[in-house]
């Protein structure tokens, strides 16, 4: 979701007061994040970048409410000429290969339109443009530009960056200017020998791409003619961005003039405003949504979503405006029809047929063990899967074997770095936070532990339990383990003395079934107790109740 601010008075003057908006916005699939007397902040879903633009947003809600359908069905067209040329240097290919641009003439940026344009461009490049990585947009006062233009690379040079009063060289911009610091990662590793991507006209540098434009060609409220460039790594995204921008200005009665892009082996013309046509049958609409509408209603609903459409024999031909870059095929049209119909108006209908529900055998299996544990007087706890080396190994006096532990690349929280290999450390933590409670404290947890075995992820389902009180000892935990083995029909297990740093030597045992180790139990070593600030004796057991879980996805 991307958020965008509009002034309430601009919406009210178009017939949308806050009450109307509160009802309307969710219906078109967006959200009101917040509002006050002055401003409204909207959340726009990522498929509709055209609605981050005030003109685009207004166009959508006007059509939806039927207030105005003037934009519906118009053909978005650019002028044929005059055009300007942009020459693309072959050497830019490795850094940021593509550029597109348009000339917009006769624009009106007065009142709040200037601010809306700036906000839109910022949000658009931030979300759809993936923080300028996929594409970035530059705005220039066309009257201050001397064509032709060159998209090329340059050594470290000086120019006055936007909103500054003195020259800075490219290096300084990248290390000191806030935009430089924010976006330098996009070009940093791609520039060799201190060459930087720039856009220049026949006289001067217009922009350090995609960081910052020059002060000299800056636009203001009074700018009448604009050059807009879009550079990036995706030709498709650049075309889509230019389509959305062009339609917005055309809706504001400006004129769009083309730009010829000269690559080494091809010449392209921007913008390329495509009006796609999609065929759909009413029957198909009804079948997918579960409603019954006729052709006439379908055409009306399409109009409310901003589509001009007509009936041709049994088919509806839907004309997709160029700013709807999210429409792939029929199913996207069907969603829009459902939105216009109103989700709340769709009558819920039961599915016909017999379906037999059942629970997952592994869940049932662990539920059985939970029941045993309750019977033995242990209460259940639930702990996170994510942990850290200190808690999982160091506090338990265990060796940390890097190769076998599943590790996370980056976490925002220090307490998270690996996936746990035992449930016991968390249980001891739980006892620690409960130290003011009346003893004995008896807790259990059933959950998965993870480790790597010959580079393969191994998931074992474990049952661990702990008992803390002044008289907790090996005999007690052995009695509980024995009872559990009996309850779960394991009568052929064997115990063997086990050496484990977390436990007191000579008071720790491992459980074997058919010579395979399935668990461990005993008295926790006082050093470990100290690490967890525990002041009474603690005994624990950890049993693998299902070894090496593999998911087969069978129904």
């Amino acid at each position, binding site marked *: 979701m991307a958020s965008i601010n509009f002034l309430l008075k601009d919406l009210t003057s178009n017939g949308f007061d806050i009450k109307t908006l509160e009802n309307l916005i969710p219906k078109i699939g967006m959200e009101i994040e917040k509002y006050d007397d002055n401003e409204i902040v909207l959340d726009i879903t990522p498929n509709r970048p055209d609605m981050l633009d005030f003109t685009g947003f207004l166009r959508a809600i006007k059509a939806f409410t039927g207030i105005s359908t003037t934009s519906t069905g118009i053909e978005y067209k650019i002028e044929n000429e005059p055009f300007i040329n942009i020459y693309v240097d072959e050497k830019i290919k490795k850094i940021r290969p593509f550029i597109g641009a348009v000339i917009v003439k006769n624009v009106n940026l007065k009142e709040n339109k200037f601010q809306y344009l700036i906000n839109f461009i910022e949000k658009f490049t931030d979300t759809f443009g993936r923080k300028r990585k996929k594409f970035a947009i530059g705005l220039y006062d066309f009257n201050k530009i001397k064509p032709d233009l060159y998209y090329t690379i340059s050594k470290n040079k000086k120019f006055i960056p936007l909103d500054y009063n003195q020259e800075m060289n490219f290096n300084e911009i990248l290390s000191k200017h806030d935009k430089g610091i924010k976006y330098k990662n996009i070009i940093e590793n791609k520039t060799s020998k201190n060459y930087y991507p720039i856009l220049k006209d026949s006289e001067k540098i217009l922009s350090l791409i995609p960081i910052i434009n020059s002060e000299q060609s800056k636009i203001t409220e009074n700018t009448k003619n604009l050059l807009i460039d879009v550079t990036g790594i995706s030709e498709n995204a650049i075309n889509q961005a230019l389509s959305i921008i062009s339609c917005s200005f055309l809706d504001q009665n400006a004129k769009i003039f083309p730009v010829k892009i000269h690559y080494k082996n091809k010449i392209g013309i921007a913008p390329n405003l495509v009006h796609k046509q999609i065929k759909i049958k009413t029957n198909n609409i009804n*079948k*997918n949504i579960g409603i019954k509408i006729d052709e006439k209603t379908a055409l009306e609903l399409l109009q409310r979503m901003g589509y001009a459409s007509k009936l041709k024999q049994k088919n509806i031909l839907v004309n997709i405006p160029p700013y709807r870059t999210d429409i792939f095929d029929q199913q996207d049209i069907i*969603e829009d029809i459902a939105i216009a119909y109103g989700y709340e108006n*769709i009558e819920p209908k039961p599915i016909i047929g017999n379906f*037999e*529900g059942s629970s997952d055998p592994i869940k049932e299996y662990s539920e059985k063990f939970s029941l045993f544990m309750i019977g033995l007087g242990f*209460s259940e706890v639930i702990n996170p899967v994510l942990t850290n080396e200190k808690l999982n190994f160091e506090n338990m006096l265990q060796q940390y074997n890097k190769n076998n532990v599943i590790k*996370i690349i980056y976490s925002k929280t220090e307490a998270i770095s690996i996936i746990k290999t035992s449930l016991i450390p968390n249980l001891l933590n739980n006892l620690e936070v*409960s130290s003011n409670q009346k003893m004995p404290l008896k807790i259990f947890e059933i959950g998965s532990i993870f480790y790597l075995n010959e580079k393969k992820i191994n998931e074992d389902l474990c049952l661990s339990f702990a008992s803390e009180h002044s008289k907790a000892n090996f005999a007690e935990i052995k009695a509980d383990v024995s009872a559990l083995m009996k309850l779960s029909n394991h009568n052929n297990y064997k115990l063997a003395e086990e050496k484990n740093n977390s436990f007191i030597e000579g008071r720790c045992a491992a459980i074997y079934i058919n010579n395979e180790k399935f668990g461990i139990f005993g008295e926790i070593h006082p050093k470990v107790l100290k690490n967890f600030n525990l002041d009474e004796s603690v005994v624990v057991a950890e049993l693998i109740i299902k070894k090496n879980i593999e998911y087969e996805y069978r129904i």
Partner: protein
Amino acid sequence: MHEYEKMVLEVLKTKKEAKVEELIEDTKLNRDAIIWALQMLEQQGLISIDRQKIFVIKLKEEAREYLNEFPEEKLIKDINKNQDKINVNKLDKIGIIWAKKNLWIIITQGLASITKKGLDAINNNYEQRTILNILNKKNEQDTDFFETNKNIIEILKNRNLIEVKDKSIITRVSINKINNIALGNENEVNVLTKEFIKKYNNENIKFKNYDINADVEPVYPARRHPLNLFINKIRKIWIELGFKEVSGPIIDSSFWVFDALFSPQDHPTRDVQDTFFLSNPKELDISDKKLINKIRNIHQKNWREKWYEAIAKQAILRTHSTNVSAHYLHSISSTDKPIKLFTIGKIFRNESIDFKHLAEFHQVDGLIIGENLNFSNLIFELKRFYEKLNPKIKINIKPSYFPFVEPGMELNYLDKKTNSIIELGGSGIIRKEICKAMNLKKKNVLAFGLGIERLIFDVLPISSLTELYKNDIGMLRNIKEIK
């Protein structure tokens, strides 16, 4: 007279008075037994007990954040720093409420400005914070302290920052009538011994009366964790609605979490800032090479960007349990009969965790695979589920966007306590391209993914999720059963 009572009296006869600890020492009985014996003796008027009432205070999780600064303190400092009136919508809500109550600020036409009293407050110690810090250092306080600071403690209690319980502790016991002790009333029957029952033949015997109001030690039965009880409730409902429960891995390749669900490879959630990527293992193999190609094709056709297998192989912790749905879409064949599936499990988000935010959540994810299924069927199933789960909450549906469904919808409800809309999850019809890639061309697939934690506040008396994961046994022992 019971054995324990006799033992305690024996000690008191010589000592005349004693503390509970001394009695434990001398009789070797445990504390519970002593307390019981003392109560029995007190009822018989044989001994006197001095009791003192003390207050036990527990700081709530949120209060820890307040120890250095209360929100209202931060708020007036911020206003003062700006030297200006600030629009109230830009300020912390809790801060506003208390700054207003304290008469530190006044609000006119939506703008907050600081008062004289507010300016004074900036330079002085805030009494709420002072008391909170004292309580944090020493959690047992006597009646004197409590009475002196009653008002402030009451405020902290109402702000849900502290929990106060009183308990009476025995400070001293002393013996009353030394001469009568041996007498007691030996004719009354106290404990029913085995011999007594054997010999008993309806004689006219007087049983010793007990004080039914006497305190007994609380018993704490073993309990399931409330979150698992809630999850089981949800499982039961889906099963009743004809869904088959399945499960899948929490560690998976990006392919099953993202690519197979049509999430573009440069999507912002596919970033280390949002998702946990693994360094060991870095990659996981995707076994079905044909499927890889089909998925590559739908990505390149619709997103018109290059698609990289290496990105799809990256090992991650799933951000939704929909990866299980993706695996099942792959394994189910077009000749299988219609089926409803669901899975419940942990999902992960790379969040900075504090007392309000977690990195692990639970999600229930479901699929309905069949022919001639439509959007109205999906709405029906989801509404049925929530009706069964909690008939009191009214579910709203609205359009929303998720890359793998079309049409897509969001489910939410209006939380009347906070007057805010709580998102419950997303749902929709799986895109045809995905069905086709999974060899389910002729099937319709309905899908949903719903958060679980969001709903738990309605059934459990807790204020934050971290309370559940802390597993404070005191909380687990005393928490109410889920509704």
